[in-house]
């Protein structure tokens, strides 16, 4: 077993230490370590975070291997500092049976770049009509705890109530993609000043907020766990804040792109900015940042959504929704939350590792760095910066909205279960 010592790195509390890794676990966290390790790595200038956990990743396999595979997606995750991802269920076939979720988890193990947890569909084929095999998925080898029809909203109130109630028996959570379908027929972008100008049909904030309002009330009524995917509006933040103040068991995520990019970018009609829910106004961005800072929004999740070039190289309305984000997430969070003074590194660890793991019941992930803890570690240098280049993304698809934007920070080393996936900013070769 290889042993590693990461020298001169800062913990999130500011303490400067060397981190020793032996047999998959953290063997020491101290200054002036006597070097008995086979491999020495430079951690100077870096902060050490528990390996990041993404609760919302589209790995596209099975079915859309032209866009991403479990292998390519988890490799991109590792490059972004992730040691675990939750693979969304909207694959083809849909992850609505034990067979599919077990396949996804197995592919993740074989790939070995990070841990893959499968998200199960709430309803069969995401059709919203009958419950998927929730118990079978929960009790399968994949041990599914997060259920979502993401890409589609569980819009039927009774279906949502039943799903919330049913998954309580195995401590599951329903992750809702909040979008009233009738209010968003053919919706193309945030409804507001920019959509009025561009003549693109609007996706109104109320279509998200109305569903969240209903769902927190349902969760309260049946005393179940509810998670809200990709919160995008100021009104949603207010509703979730209200729900939490009433003790309702709701958690929420925000994506990096909703923290940084506004709907004004759509004026280019470039579909790299087309995403669902859509980019919103600057007021929404400000509210999302405050919500993430004060804990109303619990976590950052990428909604990494790869699409091949041909699905974006067309007119706006014909283009697919979605953006990749695993490789840029931590940098965007630094830019929007840390460099602005809204979060410190300890809180970043909470929002991007500890709490997402908790929500997803990801045993062995999201554990604060301590002697004896699993060595899932991300060593990040916040002093670096780079201009994002789409072609340099290692995800199979290159549909990043951050092309040309200068982002701070650089992931230097990543350890997944004690093995390096990235060393000195280079992916480990296998």
């Amino acid at each position, binding site marked *: 077993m290889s042993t590693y010592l990461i020298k001169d790195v800062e913990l999130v509390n500011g303490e400067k230490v060397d981190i020793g890794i032996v047999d998959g676990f953290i063997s020491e966290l101290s200054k002036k370590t006597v070097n008995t390790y086979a491999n020495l790595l430079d951690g100077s200038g870096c902060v050490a975070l528990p390996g990041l956990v993404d609760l919302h990743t589209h790995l596209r396999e099975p079915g859309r291997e032209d866009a991403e595979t479990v292998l390519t997606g988890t490799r991109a995750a590792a490059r972004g500092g992730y040691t675990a991802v939750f693979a969304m269920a909207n694959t083809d076939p849909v992850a609505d049976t034990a067979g599919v979720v077990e396949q996804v988890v197995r592919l993740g193990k074989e790939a070995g770049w990070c841990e893959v947890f499968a998200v199960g569909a709430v309803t069969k084929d995401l059709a919203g009509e009958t419950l998927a095999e929730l118990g079978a998925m929960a009790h399968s080898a994949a041990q599914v705890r997060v259920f979502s029809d993401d890409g589609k909203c569980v819009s039927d109130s009774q279906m949502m109530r039943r799903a919330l109630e049913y998954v309580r028996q195995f401590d599951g959570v329903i992750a809702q993609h909040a979008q009233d379908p009738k209010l968003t027929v053919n919706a193309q972008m945030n409804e507001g000043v920019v959509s009025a100008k561009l003549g693109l049909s609007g996706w109104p904030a109320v279509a998200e907020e109305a569903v969240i309002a209903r769902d927190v009330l349902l969760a309260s009524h049946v005393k179940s766990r509810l998670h809200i995917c990709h919160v995008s509006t100021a009104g949603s933040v207010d509703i979730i804040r209200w729900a939490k103040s009433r003790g309702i068991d709701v958690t929420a995520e925000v994506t990096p792109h909703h923290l940084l990019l506004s709907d004004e970018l759509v004026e280019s009609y470039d579909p790299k900015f087309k995403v669902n829910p859509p980019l919103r106004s600057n007021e929404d961005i400000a509210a999302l940042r405050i919500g993430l800072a004060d804990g109303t929004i619990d976590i950052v999740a990428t909604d990494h959504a790869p699409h091949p070039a041909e699905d974006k190289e*067309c007119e706006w309305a014909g283009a697919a929704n979605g953006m990749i984000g695993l490789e840029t997430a931590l940098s965007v969070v630094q830019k929007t939350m840390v460099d602005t003074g809204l979060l410190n590194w300890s809180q970043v660890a909470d929002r991007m590792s500890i709490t997402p793991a908790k929500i997803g019941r990801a045993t062995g992930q999201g554990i604060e760095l301590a002697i004896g803890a699993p060595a899932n570690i991300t060593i990040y240098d916040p002093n670096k910066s780079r201009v994002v280049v789409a072609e340099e993304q290692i995800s199979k698809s290159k549909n990043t909205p951050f092309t040309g934007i200068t982002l701070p920070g650089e992931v230097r080393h990543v350890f997944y279960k004690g093995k390096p996936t990235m060393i000195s900013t280079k992916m480990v070769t296998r």
Partner: protein
Amino acid sequence: MTPEKLIELPRHLLSIGDLNHNQALLILDTAEELARISDAPIKKLPTLRGRTIVNLFFEDSTRTRISFEAAAKRLSADVINFSAKGSSVSKGESLKDTALTLQAMGADAVVLRHPESGAANRLAGWTNGVVINAGDGTHEHPTQALLDAFTIRRHLGSVGSDLEGKHIAIVGDVLHSRVARSNVLLLNLLGAKITLVAPPTLIPVGVESWPVNISYNIDEVLPEVDAVMMLRVQSERMKNSFFPSTREYSRLFGLNLDRMNLLPKGALILHPGPMNRGLEISAECADSVQSVILEQVANGVSVRMAVLYLLLGGNIGVGA
């Protein structure tokens, strides 16, 4: 036009928002010059001889295509009509492929009509040629606004002047109207006062950022305007609950004989066509002396000649 007044136009005409006041006036004034020449016995100018203009139409619009074709031919350009009907959404990459094909064919300009907003902007990114937006989804239709302003100015203003102080009402389905969007930008640029009249369902959320007044009562607005522009209303809108029935729409927002009598003497009636007679405009109004609807069609050719000429021909001094 004198050389020292030489004004550069933007490379493409995608939106009226791309133009400033001087550029808009230049197009209108050039159109006047070209209209004068068109009235002469020899209608053809050699200006664009050897240049190729492609009319790329993804949506049926015979009148707009014919207008651009006539304009191009009067400037002696070669015209290729390329119609690619069908759902653009299902066609995926075809717009880009088509753009590259046209580029390979050496098109100097592409006149694009497309059912999706922003298609012209996308096309401009894929071709070296000049792109002229001839209507993209519910976004804009710049040459329509230019010909509307040209028509209004002929009656209410003069060459070289703008529309300062004129009050224009735009009535109907503003939400889905590329004509309305381009007209709001252009009439505002030219100094006119604009009032939009429509049921609230057909006015976009976000309209508060537009330089317009809003009214839900056409009868209150008509006595105060210098021109009223009636927009086409598609009866399918009724199925999506934008209004209860075509009859109710017509009763509340249609231009009929009684309402026409509310207009000040000399006020103009415009319609971009094609009209739904009996829905947004009655036959009596469409065919009345105040109606300039047929003039709009004729003026369309002059305005499109001016646009092609200025975007492709450069600085050939009209009237020099």
